[in-house]
């Protein structure tokens, strides 16, 4: 059974149809990529899943539950984490605080319990320590040690991308949405990103849905690819099938005159 399923999704902005009757499904443990030229509606799909946009038609199901009409925080609670194309980090906070925020849903301390934070044995302090330990594991995993106590705004772009990835991982999601994880990275960083994404699936068992423009990256890591153009599905299948598909080549390179 599919872990995640989109059926006949349509999102309009006034007269513009950003996503047009789109359907696809993702199996548990897959790395699934969406490709398409600029303006194809890839990020709009993410925003619909995540609850930032409300689609006009169609359904989005995650583990059999409907996602449409849920707020972003409710979607996060159901086990879907995401990153953003143009980094949405908490820039005036340190790396560790950014990652700790990823643990927000797993922490429970209320206003009253916070009073006890000064005492090692208090509930709030114990919880805080447990989750700090968890966050250190993510720092180890993504090799972010050097950035640990730095303000995120002072980090190089590649590191910021990793912090955002780490924050999403801190949610311990079942499905992670990566919006152009390799955009703006240099060759070396891009190759590293491939490893992280594979590790996320292989070691942490998280299903990955990603949007990417870099075809080499997409080809290397995807189990299946969905190609869209102007909000419509072009084709869907294994990397070899999709990247050699006539329509896909036409969408990217234009027609031979």
């Amino acid at each position, binding site marked *: 059974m599919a872990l995640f399923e989109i059926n006949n999704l349509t999102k309009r902005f006034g007269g513009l149809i950003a996503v047009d009757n789109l359907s696809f499904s993702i199996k548990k443990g897959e790395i699934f990529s969406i490709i398409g030229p600029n303006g194809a509606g890839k990020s709009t799909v993410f925003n619909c899943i995540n609850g930032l946009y409300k689609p006009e038609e169609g359904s989005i199901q995650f583990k059999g539950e409907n996602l449409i009409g849920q707020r*972003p925080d409710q979607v996060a609670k159901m086990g879907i984490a995401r990153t*953003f194309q143009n980094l949405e980090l*908490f820039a005036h906070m340190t790396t560790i605080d950014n990652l700790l925020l990823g643990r927000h849903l797993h922490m429970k301390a209320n206003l009253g319990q*916070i009073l006890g934070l000064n005492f090692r044995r208090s509930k709030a302090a114990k919880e805080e*320590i447990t989750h700090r330990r968890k966050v250190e594991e993510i720092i180890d995993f993504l090799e972010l040690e050097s950035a640990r106590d730095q303000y995120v705004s002072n980090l190089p772009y590649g590191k910021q991308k990793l912090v955002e990835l780490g924050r999403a991982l801190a949610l311990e999601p079942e499905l992670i949405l990566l919006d152009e994880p390799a955009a703006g990275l240099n060759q070396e960083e891009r190759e590293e990103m491939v490893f992280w994404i594979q590790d996320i699936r292989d070691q942490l068992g998280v299903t990955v849905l990603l949007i990417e423009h870099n075809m080499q990256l997409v080809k290397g890591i995807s189990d299946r690819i969905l190609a869209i153009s102007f909000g419509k599905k072009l084709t869907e299948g294994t990397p070899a099938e999709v990247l050699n598909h006539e329509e896909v080549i036409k969408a990217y390179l234009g027609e031979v005159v």
Partner: protein
Amino acid sequence: MRLKLKQDYFEDIELFEDRVPIFWSVVLLGFLFALPFFVKSYYLTILMLMSVNAIVALGLNLLVGNTGQISLGHAGFVAIGAYTAVLLTKAGAPFIVSFAAAGVVAALFGILLGVPSLKLEGPYLAIATLAFGLAVTVIIGRMDFLGGRMGVSVPKLSLKWTGLKYDTSLYYLIIIITILLTIFTRNFVKSRIGRAFQAIRDSDIAASSIGINLTKYKLLSFGLSATYAGLAGALWAFYLGFISPTNFNFILSIMFLATIVVGGLGFVGGSIMGAVVMTFLNIQLENITDVPILGSLIEKFSEAFMMHSAISNVSWVFTGLILILIVLFEPMGLYGIWLRVKLYWKTWPF
């Protein structure tokens, strides 16, 4: 160079990093508690005023510095707290009840004012809060059972059991409450809820996509911030002994905002520093005409360019000047300067 290597995660959330701040905190506490035995009660009243302002600043900083919202109406919450406390004390309630009620009632109004913040941002929100602040004083001025515009005298607290002078007991009461609230605020900022506030400030889209309920936390921020103002209002009423709507005018709201900007937005230490410095400046600048040479010059300047015989305007010119300088040269405020000095000292001679 002193470098401390942390060995366990608790050290990340401890109140004091090492022994040095513990030492200085003890010194400061000792000083504050010994003070009534050495100085005239005039100086105690200054410290009380600083403390009350510090409480408002702590709350306002949570809202503005941490959550990234704005309030130009905080004097309104202070007024609500003050009048609630006075009404209940007159009805015979003990201090703890009227004090807590001041916080609760202000919190309710805070949550109410938080509702527009769900839709409005920046200047629009500023105007909404401004309107609230103005409305509160006008409405109170119209309520005869609150003393109307003439004001109302505040019954004295029964603090005889302490065996100290009234002023001294009140001083201790206010200082202790301020210290407790400061520690609570600091814990709060380090907690999951405090971090959620900052997340909303930096990026509300990202905050909601990691599971933070924006509605809940924005309202909480307004409510909590108003609670501080309400509690401070109660203390202020007991400290003043007489309150009227004009005590809580628009200028006071601006003053609170200036306090946290000067102190350092988003820093607990900044709220305290800002309150101490701004209160001190306000009091000192009112006596500026007593300064030799400069005083008479300022008086002439004031009469020529500002309102006639309204020398207190000068203090506002200085306050404005300080604000501009801080925003230009040290956006992190006094606390930012303090952090820099600390870093220099720690890493000396590098």
